[in-house]
C-alpha cells in the first residue's frame, strides 16, 4: 500500500477559501505551541492576542500598506516574476518623497507637492525594479537573487544619504532627516491617529488599477500568459523582454507609491539605519501575495489576516509575554503551512494498494 499525490481534474472547490483558512488556523496553533514550549507563553493568552488583533483598530494602517504592496507584487507574480524586492523599492520611494518634501520648493504648493512625492516615488521604485527586469530579460539572470540583493543596496544608499547629505539640523543627536513640512503630511481621518485619506485613496486606486489591468487589458492578459505559458507568447510574436521589464517596473512603481505613503502618512522622516527601523512590509507582503493565491480580489482579505498576525505579535510583546519575535513565528508558521497545503488545491492524496 502506498500513498500517492495525484493531480486533480479540477482544482479543489472553494480551495481559494478553504486552504488559506486552514493554513491560518493550523499556523496559529503551531505558533501557539512553539511559543508555549520555548517562551512559556500561556496558550490562552496567545490565542486571545490573535483574536483581539483581528478586531483591533490599530491594524488598519498595516492593512492598507500591505494591500498596496500585495497589489504591487501581484502584477509581477501573475507573470511568474518573483519580485522579492518590494522592500527596497518601497524604501527608495520613501527616499524620493523625502527629497521632494525637504529639498525642493514644491512644499509651498502642498497639493502639487503631495502628488509629486507619490509620482517621483513611483518613478524611482519602478526604475529600481526595472534594473532586475533588464537583467532577467536580456541575460536571463534569475530575478529572485537580484531583487533581493538590490534591497540591501537600497538600504545602504539611503543610510548613506541620511548619515551624510540629508542629515537633519533639528534631530537632537539622532541620526535622521528633518521632519517633512507639516503641509505635505497626509491628512488624518477623523478619529484616527495613523490612517490618512491619501493612504486610503492610494490603496483603493492600487487595487482597482491592478484589478482592471490584469483582467481587462491586453497587457494584463499577456502578463498572465507569461506566468502560465511563455512559449505561447513568443510564438504569438509578443516582445517577452519588454513585457518582463514592464511587469517589474509596474510592480516596483506601486511599491514605491507605498513608500511615499509611509513617509507622508506615518513616519514623516527617515531614521538611520533603515535595516533596524523598517517594519519589513516588503517581505511580509510576499506572504499577502501568496495567501491571496494571486487573485487580486483576495488581497485585502489576506492583508487583513496578515496585519492581524503582525499586530498580535506586537501586542504579545507589549504585554511582556514574548519578545518581538512572536510576529515572525506567526508569519513563518502560517506561510510554511500554506506553502505545503496549497499543493492540495491542485493535487489530492490517494491510497493505492499493491
Amino acid at each position, binding site marked *: 500500500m502506498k500513498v500517492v499525490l495525484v493531480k486533480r481534474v479540477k482544482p479543489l472547490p472553494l480551495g481559494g477559501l478553504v486552504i488559506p483558512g486552514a493554513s491560518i488556523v493550523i499556523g496559529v496553533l503551531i505558533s501557539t505551541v512553539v511559543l508555549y514550549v520555548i517562551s512559556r507563553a500561556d496558550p490562552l493568552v496567545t490565542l486571545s492576542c490573535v483574536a483581539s488583533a483581528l478586531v483591533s483598530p490599530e491594524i488598519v494602517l498595516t492593512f492598507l500598506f500591505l494591500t498596496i504592496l500585495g497589489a504591487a507584487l501581484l502584477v509581477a507574480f501573475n507573470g511568474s516574476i518573483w519580485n522579492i524586492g518590494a522592500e527596497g523599492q518601497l524604501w527608495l520611494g520613501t527616499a524620493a518623497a523625502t527629497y521632494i518634501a525637504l529639498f525642493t520648493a514644491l512644499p509651498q504648493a502642498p497639493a502639487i507637492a503631495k502628488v509629486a512625492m507619490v509620482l517621483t516615488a513611483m518613478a524611482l521604485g519602478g526604475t529600481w525594479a526595472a534594473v532586475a527586469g533588464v537583467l532577467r530579460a536580456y541575460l536571463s539572470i534569475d530575478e529572485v537573487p537580484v531583487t533581493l540583493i538590490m534591497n*540591501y543596496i537600497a538600504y545602504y544608499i539611503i543610510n548613506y544619504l541620511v548619515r551624510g547629505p540629508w542629515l537633519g539640523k533639528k534631530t537632537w543627536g539622532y541620526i535622521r532627516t528633518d521632519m517633512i513640512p507639516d503641509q505635505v503630511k497626509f491628512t488624518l481621518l477623523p478619529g484616527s491617529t495613523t490612517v490618512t485619506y491619501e493612504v486610503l485613496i492610494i490603496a483603493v486606486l492600487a487595487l482597482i488599477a491592478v484589478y482592471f489591468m490584469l483582467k481587462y487589458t491586453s497587457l494584463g492578459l499577456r502578463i498572465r500568459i507569461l506566468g502560465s505559458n511563455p512559449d505561447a507568447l513568443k510564438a504569438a510574436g509578443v516582445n517577452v523582454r519588454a513585457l518582463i521589464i514592464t511587469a517589474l517596473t509596474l510592480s516596483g512603481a506601486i511599491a514605491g507609491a507605498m513608500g511615499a505613503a509611509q513617509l507622508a502618512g506615518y513616519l514623516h522622516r527617515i531614521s538611520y539605519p533603515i535595516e533596524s527601523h523598517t517594519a519589513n512590509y516588503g517581505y511580509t507582503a510576499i506572504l499577502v501575495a501568496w495567501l491571496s493565491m494571486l487573485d487580486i480580489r483576495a488581497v485585502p482579505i489576506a492583508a487583513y489576516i496578515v496585519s492581524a498576525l503582525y499586530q498580535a505579535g506586537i501586542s504579545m510583546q507589549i504585554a511582556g509575554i514574548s519578545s518581538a519575535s512572536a510576529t515572525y513565528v506567526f508569519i513563518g508558521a502560517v506561510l510554511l503551512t500554506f*506553502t505545503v497545503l496549497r499543493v492540495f488545491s491542485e493535487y489530492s492524496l490517494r491510497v493505492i494498494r499493491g
Partner: protein
Amino acid sequence: MDAASYILSVAPAFMAYYLTSLGQGFFEKSGVLNLSIDGVFVLGIAVAYAASIYSCSPWVGLAAAVLTAVVFGMLLTYVTTKFPVSHGAAGLSIMFLGYGLAGLVGVAARNTYNEMVVSGIYPQFTLPVTPIAKVLMFAIPVGLGILLYLLEVRTKLGAAVRAVGEDPHAATSLGIDVLRVRLIAAALGYSLIGAGSAGFLTWVATWSEGTGINHGWIAYAVSLAAGRHPLLTVGTAGAFAILATYMYTLQAAYNLSPEIAKMIPFIVAIGAMVTFMSTPLRKKLAPPQSLGRRFFKEERTV
C-alpha cells in the same frame, strides 16, 4: 599591531562568511533555491549562544547550531523536492520562522546568562580566539572547502549533486534518487552554515535580538559573487571578511563610508552574475539549470 595579528584578526569573520557561503553554494548546486539562509543563520547564532550557556561549553553550542541548521535544511529540501511547491515561498517561510525562533531561544538564554552572571558564573559562548585558534579558523574552513571541491568534481556523489541541480528528471532516469542526493547536499551544506553561524557569534562576541540579521544574505551574495565555486569563494569571502573587520579603520584612514563598504558585496554579487551570464565563464560559473524549478511529474508516491 604587527602584520600577522592584523591578518589573524580577520579569522573569525572569515570563518563565519566562508563556511556559510560555502555551504550555501554547495547546497544550491543540488538545485534547491535557498532563501532560508538568513533565517537559519540567525537561528544558528541564537542556538549556539543558548546551547553554550546552558552547557557552559562553546563546543556544545557549535554542535547545536550545526544540528539545528541541518534539521531546517532537510525540512526545506524535503518539502521542495517531494511536493510541487515554490522554493522561494518555502525558503522565505523558514527564514521568518528562523528569525522568530532565534528571538525566543536567545532571549530565554540571555535571561539565564544574566542570572548566572549575578551568581558569579561567566559561561563561555565564544570559541577560543588564541592566535593558534585563529590560524585554525583559516585553515580548517579552507581545508573543508578543498575537500568539498574535490567531492564536487571527483566523486560520484558530487556528480550526482550537480546532475540533480542541472536536470533532476534526467538524473532520475539514470537511477539517481533525487531526494536522497538533495538531502545529503542539505546535510553537508547546512552543517557548514550552522558552523558559520557559530563562527559569527565568536566574531561579534555578544548576542541581542536580531544579531546576525542580514549577514546570511551577505554570505548569499558572497557565494553568488564566486559563482558557487568552493575555491573562488575563499577569495570573495576573504575579501569581504577583511572589509567587514576593518570597516571602521578604513573609514578613518581612507574616508571610506561604512555604508559603501557594506554595499560592496551586494554590488559585486550582481556584477559577478552579469559577468558569468554574458561571458564564456558561463560554462563554469552559471547557476544550475534547474535551480529553484519544481521537480514534479504527474503523480508520485509521498
